[in-house]
């Protein structure tokens, strides 16, 4: 029986992906290589995964050449790529990019772009430029940072306010005049980050994908970001697994350290946080919510922020439980800790996320803007 809420085919995909990614990661060796190369991106592996394994299209509708396995399908992938820190643009391209196109593009553009995503032939980076970019005389200026996976994207999807304060979504080639992408080193070396500079980039130089109002755009963006919860769950599971392996093997004071109550209880707390985050993640991907965008938005908000907090706590505890080896570079645990820290801040901070949730559940708000910037 497949584990709730998944179906048999999800479980099969998980088994296949798990093995492939485990080979890729090679017990941390590949993470060291990726960190050394400094790109946060393993192109060969991505092509193997996306094209040869056919994983890029897991949640793309069947009519566009995907497997049509819905949010639960990509939850499986994100969990397993999180477990191995697979350094590839699945989230940027197949979640963020695909969701934007699915929601806002014309049927023709969908047919074109979604099938390119499904076949692994395109890498997309999505930039939310609503607060960073200004539109003047039909051209965009400003800087968007951090811009995940922009450094090797074939298509950069940019959201910015138009003259009517709607959100316009435009697709640019990275070679567009006035647009430049500068990669930067991130604390998390397994994810590709960049700054994207816009100097009078004409809207007409890009491909107009669609328009929508601000609220609808925020909802779709949040639902896509909800998939990060699964990445957090996968990473958290990895941290717990590494900790259990270590605790059962390491002997101090004449006992496995895993027999000490302080270690056992910390592992129990990690497990509680992990399974809670898993419930939050699965809830947001639950097909029950498919017809209720507001409920799905709220569930995604909960999932992303709850799971990101849990992952950071689990990863920090994992380092602590490992003692000295936990904070060495050689032992790959720190990559997970860094990813956890990055995920807490990616898109919205947990603080802003929970404040948004407070609005959502009907708590009266202050009228003043209290966030920084």
């Amino acid at each position, binding site marked *: 029986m497949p*584990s*709730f*809420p998944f179906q048999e085919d999800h479980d099969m995909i998980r088994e296949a992906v798990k093995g492939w990614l485990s080979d890729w990661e090679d017990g941390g060796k590949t993470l060291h290589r990726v960190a050394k190369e400094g790109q946060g991106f393993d192109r060969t592996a991505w092509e193997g995964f996306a094209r040869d394994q056919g994983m890029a299209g897991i949640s793309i509708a069947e009519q566009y050449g995907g497997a049509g396995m819905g949010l639960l399908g990509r939850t499986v992938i994100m969990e397993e790529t999180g477990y191995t820190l697979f350094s590839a643009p699945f989230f940027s391209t197949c979640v963020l990019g695909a969701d934007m196109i699915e929601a806002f593009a014309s049927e023709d553009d969908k047919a074109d772009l979604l099938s390119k995503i499904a076949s692994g032939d395109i890498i997309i980076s999505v930039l939310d430029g609503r607060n960073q970019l200004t539109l003047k005389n039909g051209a965009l200026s400003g800087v968007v940072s951090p811009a995940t996976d922009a450094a090797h994207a074939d298509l950069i999807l940019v959201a910015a306010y138009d003259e009517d304060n709607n959100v316009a979504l435009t697709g640019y080639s990275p070679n567009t005049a006035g647009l430049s992408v500068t990669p930067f080193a991130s604390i998390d070396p397994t994810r590709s980050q960049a700054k994207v500079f816009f100097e009078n980039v004409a809207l007409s130089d890009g491909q107009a994908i669609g328009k929508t109002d601000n609220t609808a755009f925020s909802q779709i963006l949040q639902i896509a970001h909800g998939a990060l919860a699964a990445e957090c769950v996968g990473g958290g599971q990895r941290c717990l697994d590494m900790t*259990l392996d270590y*605790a*059962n093997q390491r002997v101090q004071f004449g*006992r*496995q350290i*895993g*027999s*000490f*109550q302080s*270690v*056992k*209880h910390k*592992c*129990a*707390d990690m*497990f*509680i946080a992990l*399974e*809670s985050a*898993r*419930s*939050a993640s*699965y*809830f947001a991907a*639950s097909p029950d919510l498919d017809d209720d965008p507001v409920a799905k938005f709220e*569930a995604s908000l*909960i999932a992303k*922020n*709850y799971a990101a907090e849990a992952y950071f706590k689990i990863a920090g505890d994992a380092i602590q439980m490992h003692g000295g080896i936990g904070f060495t570079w050689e032992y790959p645990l720190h990559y997970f800790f860094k990813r956890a820290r990055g995920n807490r801040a990616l898109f919205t901070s947990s*603080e802003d996320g*929970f*404040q948004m*949730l*407070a609005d959502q*559940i*009907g*708590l*009266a*708000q*202050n009228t003043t803007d*209290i966030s920084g910037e």
Partner: protein
Amino acid sequence: MSIREELNQWMLENLTGEFEQIRWRGGPGDEDSSPELRRAWEQKFGEAGWIGLQWPKEYGGRDLSLMDFVEFNEEYARHGGPGRAGHIGETLMAPTILAYGSEAQKERFLPGIKNGTELWCQGYSEPNAGSDLSNIKTKARLDGDSWVINGQKIWTSLAHESDWIFVIARAEEGSKGRDGLVFLLVELDQPGIEIRPIHQISGTAEFNEVYFTEAKTDATNMIGDVGEGWKIAMALLGFERGASTLGQQMMFQNELNLIIKTANENGRAKDPTLRRRIAEAHAGLKVMRFNALRMLNGTQDGSTSKEGYISKIFWATWHRDLGELAMDVIGADAEIIEDELSPLQKLFLFSRADTIYAGTNQIQRNIISERALGMPKEPRGSANG
């Protein structure tokens, strides 16, 4: 008509009149409120056929599916249905009798539960066996056709409102730990039983001490055999993690709603720190609900799936934190008692017990680490381990 619609209809028609005053009442920490009215409600509820829905049809149940039972519980709580006086009988005793009882025991005890006429309580803990449940000192000896019981139980919820108690006792002289125990059903109204209330931090008394002095029960009122008491007691605890947790969560939702309402009314909803804590409480409740669905869909036989192990510590800690949040949301007035403790004040005080009874948070972490994570057991002390 779905079960939800059926119940909705019935609640609209029946949670009325004198029962209005027990709407939203009788939850954990408030179980002392209007006991007689809640007993009457239990009978009315039973007469309407709402008790034992998941039981097999041959015992008067409807063999209700899990998801339907979930809906049923949610609907009940949505109406503010009173805390159920018969919940220990329905959710713990009945599944145990169905799984381990004889045909005669099923015939004798299931109808009283189903009709809401016989209420049950639980006789597990003892003064010297709190977290260490196997350290049972209460003794039972067979004397002709009767078991004769001597000893003391403690932390027995609602003993003073109940008709029967199930008891684990030591039947084999000199046995230790989990060996030599029996699981007995004992009528409370008899000279050999004395019930003394334990007043809690909230001033109310849901819990009791129950003293047995040559108390008797018929030899036929043993579930399983001599030496099987531990196995049956543990199986019963397994049922505690069942679908009733979803009903409990709806009670929690009502408490959270009251906190949100209070915050909006007194303006503290605008305080970012409180906003965040309330939002986190809301997220926690959603997580709890989906975790319960995972758990219930994972196993349906009283055993515990891996994620099921987090259920108790998660809700207990969440609920205790909710109590602290409630007081902070009320603000400076939180200390003032008007006539009696308000529901949020009760929540604050009573929820301190949540992380202790039915397995402290510390015991839960032991269980999780050993059973869900397979970590090594601690060496036991030399004293009597």
